[in-house]
């Protein structure tokens, strides 16, 4: 009797192992920027839900978050500590270093050639995110374009021409100031990022803007920062611009209290304030002799990275590749581009885009030169020194030359020169 009982227990044990094996759960950790107010978050969440429904043995821990500095550092530290997610959306520009050089993400060139990963992604887009070691590590989903978002209602109400040139920009600033409207909403004290890029691009040229620090401080950068000071002195920005960041500037524009805001395509949805604001996007006006009126800042600076450890894990490989393919599929990219109005990374045509997006895309297509943002080109500490210096320049506490020289010294310090 005891023998029979023992045999039964052994069979039950073996059988239960078999059941567990057959239904083996795979857990995947994913981090993207598609969270909070991001326009793609709804599309993304639905895709994840659908994926889990289609693959009941896969459980996805979605750690997506709005990418503020603390989230970025958390991701970078996860890679440094070998605790990276299985799929990570992160930057592909100068900020990609901690992710790529951790050695913990898959080079995708072979996978792109051998499998359907990246199928349909535009080759030119893949070239834009190629890392300095010659490999492609990330697959972009959507790109962006930046420009001047205008509150069309305010321009029509006060009979102001769109600022397509420096003179028209000055005239618009004067008219809006005379009518108690903030001409441009910018948080110069905390987040002058887009104003820096555009002032440099449109005072100098794409060449000057893209000069980086390799050959010292470019004259276009000095003139660009002086241009911000000129705008500040003529009252182009809100009174508390030196104490504000993005939230304050975006809030002011949303409430219809500001006529213009320098932003990216991702901000168009929010700037419309659920249809209360009639907005459009135009290229930032040429502000100096070397500037080109059509030039824009745009491109692909983020993408999905695949964890090497997850890919090499036999238990996970199939599921993680399947999810990676789904999130880089033409179908998902189309849906994402339709949600955020950004540039699709695949050969797809977004449908049903609202007019401001079409205006922005049209400006992008007509641009003679396209530049990546300056923070995609120089090390983070040097960029932050410029960001911090704008308030000092506007308040006459430092000159543009001093701020850029400080940033250049930091560039030399961190790059070991």
């Amino acid at each position, binding site marked *: 009797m005891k023998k029979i009982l023992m045999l039964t227990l052994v069979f039950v044990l073996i059988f239960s192992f078999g059941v567990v094996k057959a239904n083996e759960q795979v857990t995947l950790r994913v981090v993207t920027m598609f969270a909070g107010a991001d326009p793609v978050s709804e599309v993304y969440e639905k895709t994840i839900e659908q994926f889990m429904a289609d693959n009941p043995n896969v459980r996805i821990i979605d750690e997506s978050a709005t990418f503020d500095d603390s989230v970025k550092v958390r991701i970078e530290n996860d890679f440094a500590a070998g605790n990276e997610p299985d799929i990570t959306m992160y930057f592909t520009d100068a900020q990609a270093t901690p992710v790529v050089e951790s050695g913990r993400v898959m080079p995708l060139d072979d996978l792109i050639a051998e499998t359907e990963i990246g199928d349909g992604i535009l080759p030119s887009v893949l070239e834009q995110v190629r890392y300095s070691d010659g490999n492609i590590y990330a697959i972009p989903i959507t790109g962006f374009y930046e420009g001047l978002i205008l509150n069309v209602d305010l321009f029509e109400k006060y009979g102001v021409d769109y600022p397509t040139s420096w003179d028209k920009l000055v005239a618009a600033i004067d008219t809006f100031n005379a009518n108690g409207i903030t001409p441009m909403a910018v948080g110069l*004290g905390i987040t002058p990022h887009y104003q820096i890029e555009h002032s440099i691009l449109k005072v100098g040229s794409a060449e000057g803007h893209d000069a980086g620090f390799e050959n010292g401080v470019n004259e276009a950068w000095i003139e660009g920062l002086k241009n911000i000071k000129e705008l500040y002195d003529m009252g182009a920005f809100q009174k508390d611009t030196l104490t504000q960041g993005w939230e304050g500037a975006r809030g002011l524009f949303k409430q219809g209290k500001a006529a213009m805001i320098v932003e990216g395509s991702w901000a168009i949805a929010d700037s419309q304030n659920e249809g209360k604001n009639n907005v459009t996007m135009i290229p930032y006006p040429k502000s100096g002799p070397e500037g080109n009126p059509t030039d824009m800042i745009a491109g692909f600076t983020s993408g999905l990275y695949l964890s090497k450890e997850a890919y090499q894990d036999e238990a996970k490989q199939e599921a993680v590749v399947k999810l990676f393919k789904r999130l880089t599929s033409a179908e998902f990219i189309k849906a994402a581009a339709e949600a955020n109005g950004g540039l699709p990374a695949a050969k797809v045509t977004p449908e049903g885009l609202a007019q401001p997006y079409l205006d922005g895309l049209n400006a992008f297509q007509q641009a003679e030169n396209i530049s990546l943002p300056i923070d995609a080109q120089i090390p983070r500490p040097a960029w932050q020194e410029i960001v911090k210096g704008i308030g000092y320049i506007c308040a006459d506490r430092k000159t543009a030359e001093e701020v850029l020289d400080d940033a250049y010294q930091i560039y030399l310090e961190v790059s070991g020169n």
Partner: protein
Amino acid sequence: MEVVFIKTKDDKKVIFFFLFPALLMMTIFLFYPIVRSFYKTFYIAVQNINPRFVGLHNYRKLLTDPAVWIATKNTFIFMIAAVIFQVGIGIVLAVLVDMIRAGKEFFKTVYFFPIVMSAASLGLLFKLLYNYNSGLLNAFLINFGYEPVLWLDASKALLMVMIPTLWQYVGFYFVIILTAMTKIPEQLYEVAYLEGASTIQRVTKVTLPLIFEDIKVILVLAITGALRVFDFVWLITQGGPFDSSQVLGTYMYSAVFQRRLFGYGSTIAILIIVLGVIITSITNKLLGKRDVSID
């Protein structure tokens, strides 16, 4: 009657057994990070990767960085303000509430309430109050016919971030002092009353000397707490404009999280630890042992 403690051979093992978990946690989450931070101070490690040994470079930079001096000065201003306003107002409120007969619990709850609210929500609240365009303060001013004020400009930013920081913890010290005052026997006050002592004399000659040990504790807490000031400053001004409201906590955070200079951020963290140890020692020495026994 004498109390006899019986010691057994296993006492040390038992003590070690109970202390070990706490020691382990402290080692993992406090001592190891401090040692690791100290190690990082000798490196430039942008984005915490590819560290490059630079010897004492970060310490030399610390000494010549004007923002560090502003942040240190502001941190000391916070300390002085914490002693005067947090501890001072806490004591005054505790003495006043102790004197009243009805409503003690009500005032205890009201004054303690800000402590239980998250600094993030309070920070946001104050940020909105100070907002130039749509803030409550400027709405009042405009309503009464005055010009709106830039509450967070360089001349006022430090004061504006000090107000919520100091206000939030007044209730904490108030409750500690009020609790300490309950141990003073009522008879002492009765004797003082019969001797003809005024209310102020009763407070200064009876109450305060008898709770001096507790005041000492909250002084140390307030002073060391000033070294950890971060949340309100970061939420309201991020240390600006022009570093005018910068404190050591926010400057360390911006070095690591904004500029990604992990080595330099660690050097600022070491400065905070060293200052904390020195200031606590000085405070303890200055306050000395002035025990007054109730017995």
